[in-house]
């Protein structure tokens, strides 16, 4: 198992290098440059700025300089959008906020989704089941830029229960987390339901009942564990995207998270931040997928890694 983990981590290195390379050149393909704002600087100033950040050199030289800095010094470079900060500073500021928001949204989705899925599976083909699954379809279909404002209108502007935007205490967390979790709640509810329905029909569940186990034990100890695999495999990529910052929701609720910085940087052609954030999300994705594979082996002993 340890060997498996080590090999996967080693394999991640070339993957990340490719990700950095592709995103580096993709950003440069976009027209415009970091210092071309509406309120134009004098050309001499722009020249000096470009020289300061090494942007006056040929592209391949910039690339090798950048890669050298990333690999040898683990330095993601300066920011051209936020002149007083480095990319590392921006990530250090944005990532915790994004992770708090994404983690809360994911936990909410996990709890609500699994509860709804379990209830639906136990009352299969009943009104409760159809009702829960109808809500789930709704949850998957409503885009978060619609759901977010709807929640704001109802819970903030009408009922005055929660602040409509900004970031500070826990009350600011609730609306964006709810908005963000809707899609995932719905998806997890469907996955849990179908997984559980299938497992509940299997022979070993009948064995568990024949043993004389209480129905709750049959469900919790025997059925649920077997039905969780799809939820677990979905959780890897879902969590990576949730933790790595969500552009629409962070923008909508004015949250200083990674997604917000990312979109600001992209608009300002700040290639260093764009590549840096991409690298963070890719790393999250790789690590969480590895975690998923490890959890797989823990819940299903038939899966063994060598």
């Amino acid at each position, binding site marked *: 198992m340890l060997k498996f983990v080590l090999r996967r981590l080693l394999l991640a290195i070339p993957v990340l290098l490719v990700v950095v390379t592709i995103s580096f050149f993709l950003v440069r393909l976009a027209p415009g440059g970091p210092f071309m704002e509406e309120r134009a600087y004098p050309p001499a100033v722009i020249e000096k700025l470009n020289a300061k950040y090494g942007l006056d050199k040929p592209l391949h030289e910039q690339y090798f300089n950048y890669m050298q800095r990333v690999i040898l010094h683990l330095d993601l470079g300066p920011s051209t959008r936020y002149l007083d900060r480095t990319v590392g500073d921006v990530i250090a500021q944005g990532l915790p906020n994004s992770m708090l928001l994404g983690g809360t949204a994911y936990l909410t989705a996990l709890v609500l989704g699994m509860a709804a899925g379990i209830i639906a599976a136990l009352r299969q083909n009943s009104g409760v089941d159809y009702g829960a699954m109808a809500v789930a379809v709704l949850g998957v279909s409503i885009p978060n830029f619609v759901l977010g404002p709807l929640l704001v209108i109802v819970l903030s502007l009408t009922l005055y229960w929660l602040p409509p935007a900004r970031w500070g205490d826990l009350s600011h967390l609730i609306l964006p987390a709810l908005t963000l979790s809707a899609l995932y709640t719905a998806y997890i509810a469907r996955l849990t339901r179908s997984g559980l329905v299938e497992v509940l029909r299997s*022979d*070993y569940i009948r064995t*568990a009942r024949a*043993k004389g186990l209480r129905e709750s034990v049959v469900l919790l100890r025997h059925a649920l564990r077997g039905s969780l695999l799809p939820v677990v495999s979905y959780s890897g990529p879902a969590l990576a995207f949730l933790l790595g910052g969500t552009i629409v929701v962070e923008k909508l609720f004015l949250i200083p998270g990674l997604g917000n910085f990312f979109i600001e940087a992209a608009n300002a052609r700040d290639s260093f931040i764009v590549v840096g954030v991409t690298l963070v999300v890719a790393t999250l994705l790789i690590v969480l997928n590895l975690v998923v594979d490890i959890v797989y082996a823990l819940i299903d*002993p*038939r899966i063994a890694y060598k």
Partner: protein
Amino acid sequence: MPENVSSLIAVRDVKVHFPLDSVGSLGRLLGRPPARVVKAIDGVTLDIQPGKTLGLVGESGCGKSTLGRAILQLVRPTAGRIFFKGTELTGLNARQLQQMRRRMQMVFQDPYASLNPRMTVGDIIAEPIEIFEPLRGEALRRRVQELMRTVSLNPAFVKRYPHEFSGGQRQRIGIARALAVGPEFIVADEPIAALDVSIQAQILNLLSQLRRELGLTTLFISHDLRAVRHISDRVAVMYLGKLVEVADSHEIYRRPLHPYTQALISAVPVPDPAVEKTRRRIVLTGDVPSPINPPTGCRFHTRCPYAQERCRAEEPPLVDTGGGHQAACFLLEEVSSGGAARDSAA
């Protein structure tokens, strides 16, 4: 109360019907019955005496497994009553029934699917013990290993998972699990059907040895007539949800009365070339009719070589022809003379 109090298991006119079409919430509200119903068991009366093994045979889909599950209340019967030592199982609530599980257990057909793949063998066997007994820790571990030895499994494998075992070994795990709480009655539902022939004999011998040593009463469900003959004291033959013949094991193989039983037994190869050469197979024509719309009258009349007008109209009751040999056929005289003619020809 059942008429025959000496029986360990008494089944009285039990029916198990499965609705085929979902009625829907509105239909349920209006009390509308489902349009089509699978009559898996349609009126079965049966007794199993303490310490004896009853073999239950029949083609696939005739309701054997459903009857076994219905007796253990893993499927609740639609109608009829089932008694365990005079206690009516069909009248128990979930809680009382759970307590009864200690006294009656089941060995399932498919040793691959019926063991939870996420539990170690030790946990699988220990789980029922933990429900019913205060054994924990070292004592529980010793009990589990003892059970594993009883079914000839190496107790060192206690921490392994089901997928690490062969089919025969898994069936031994299933048997150990069933025996773990010391039941009086076991339903063995085609316990050897999923196994290689070479392993079948081992499991059969294990079952009959355990039955002798532990004084178990057993319902042995199988479509393998040779296996049933080997292990059973009494044999019941089932066709389309009904019993057609019940008799002592040696009697039914020597003198089958019902034409269906005769056809089944004639299909068994005899491991003696001289006899096998003269064996004449009664080949039934047609398929088993659907249990959704079973034939009127005697259910076997569509395939019976002796069928007459009466068989199409009336349903023959299961009657005792003497010496506990029961058969459900109007034409016993004729059929047995036909059988006799076959015997003399042999």
